[in-house]
């Protein structure tokens, strides 16, 4: 049971790791954004995991429930907000990527850097 009790956290941590790796190591801008949402999703899982109560149920009263244990509503509220923040960031990031593609006709960070370097040299 010791193992089971932490399994959720560990998966969340490994997910976090894979997303974080994609953000840092990948050079494609869209891939970075995908990694970013993976990274954030892992944090959502971390929060929701800590709100669970064994034998509890979703924190919504039903007419039948007099003696129910509820899971913790607060992490759920926080994560609802965080999901929204995540999708907003992704949308804005994608808009920037689309503009980048239009201006540079590539979405690879390395190629963009190369072009920028040439531009910097040309301007000096």
């Amino acid at each position, binding site marked *: 049971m010791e193992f089971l009790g932490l399994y959720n956290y560990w998966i969340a941590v490994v997910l976090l790791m894979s997303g974080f790796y994609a953000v840092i190591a990948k050079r494609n801008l869209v891939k970075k954004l995908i990694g970013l949402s993976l990274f954030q999703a892992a*944090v959502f899982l971390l929060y929701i995991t*800590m709100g669970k109560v064994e034998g509890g149920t979703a924190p919504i009263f039903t007419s039948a429930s007099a003696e129910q244990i509820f899971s913790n509503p607060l992490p759920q509220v926080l994560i609802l907000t965080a999901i929204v*923040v995540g999708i907003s960031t992704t949308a*804005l990031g994608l808009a*920037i990527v689309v503009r*980048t593609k239009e201006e540079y006709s590539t979405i690879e960070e390395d190629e963009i*850097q190369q072009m920028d370097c040439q531009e910097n040299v040309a301007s000096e």
Partner: protein
Amino acid sequence: MSSWTPHLPALQVVVPLMTAPLAVLMPDRRLSWALATAASLCALAIAIVLVGEVRDQGNIVYEMGLWAPPYGIALGVDAMSALLLLVVTGASSFALLAAPTSLSHEVGHERQSYFYAAWLLALAGLSGILVTADAFNIFVFMEISSLSAYILIAGGPDRRALPAVFKYLVMGTIGATFYLIGVGLVYMMTGTLNLADMELRLADVGDVKPILVAAGFITVGLALKAAIFPLHVWLPNAYTFAPNVVTVFLAACATKISIYVLIRFDFFVFQGNLTAHDWQFSYFLMPLAVLGILVASTVAIFESNLKRLLAWSSVAQIGYIMLGASLVSAAGLTASMLHMFNHALAKGTAFLALSCLALSVSRLDIKNIGGVARRMPWTMAAFVVGGLSLIGVPGTAGFISKWYLISATLDMGNLAPALIAVILLGSVMAVVYVWRVVEIAYFGQGAGTITDDYIQEAPLAILIPTWIAVLLNIWFGLTPALPVELSTSAAELLMEHLR
């Protein structure tokens, strides 16, 4: 009017926040601008009143929705947040006053209403961080301010703004997510999100692993957002390619707000409850601060793009602010707070002067400004005052904070000579990079590419806010009572939590 005073902490955020949708709906960009400026000035007025209130009666607490903390979200204004509220609203107002002139070259007219809305959101987000007393609420407003800052920067006319802002977006989001992880871990062990309540309940928990890791995540995440060396890599390009007035606004206050959260979190929540946390805090940040000052100043000396030069100087100045905080003493924190205020003044003035310059000089490169001071005396004079303040020459605001910083390091025993040497060396480097610009502007030859006739003094609409900023630099250099008083009480407040 007086019936509104209890609501001021909420209004500080709500006024710019609610004006943003209205600005989008405005049919004309000039109306959007007028609305934004009015809201910003209103926010400045609120901040000034709040400063008065804080000086009169200490901390102000406001319960959102009348739910008592920690169940509801509480707002709190103390000396520290009041001081920074002045910085944020002031910077926003000055930059907005200069905006219509400067922006017409950079952002298409039909897009400007969105631009001003984003500006107001940035203002609201930054003030929201300052007034809230809830750890998660900080995250929400941090995201409002960051997203709108990305928009503002992406409005830059150069296409290089796009990769710069993308990098900022990625690093900023990583920073915010790290902060979120940290808050989550603290929440896991305390069950609360209110900062004051967290401090209380953490005392029972003590040094458990999640809390230690949380302290690490929060510090690193906020350091990323605050561009503390070596996590500053997003900053230079973002500031360089943003529209000029945006640089004025963000350079003056954006990173400082993250430092504010960092200091507040570390001192309020962790310092008193974790063994040896003050020591760890100090020895983690001090080397970074010192390295930041030295490396960034060196880069600035060799930089030829004027905006990037000042951006690197910002990285160095963040080093000073962190150096003060890392002393973990009342004097050090006072110096740190004071430098946030004074650096905002100095850097704001310098960037405002560059905005004036940009109206005549197409490319803000050191080679293109040969002799412009003869054509634009007022602009360059403003830049000189800003530069002097950056260096820390007596009579300017910058001097005060450097002075406080040096006197704070004197308490550090055998580290003191080394730290003082670093501060002085940094100032000498600042002399060098400011002088390079001044020398060419005043004594250099006109650049061949632009005919001299084209270069003319900036219009009054932008010169006036610039010169008000210049005068403020001198005013607070000569009579620094107000910021010093606020900084001192803020530092005392922070030190109280050290137990």
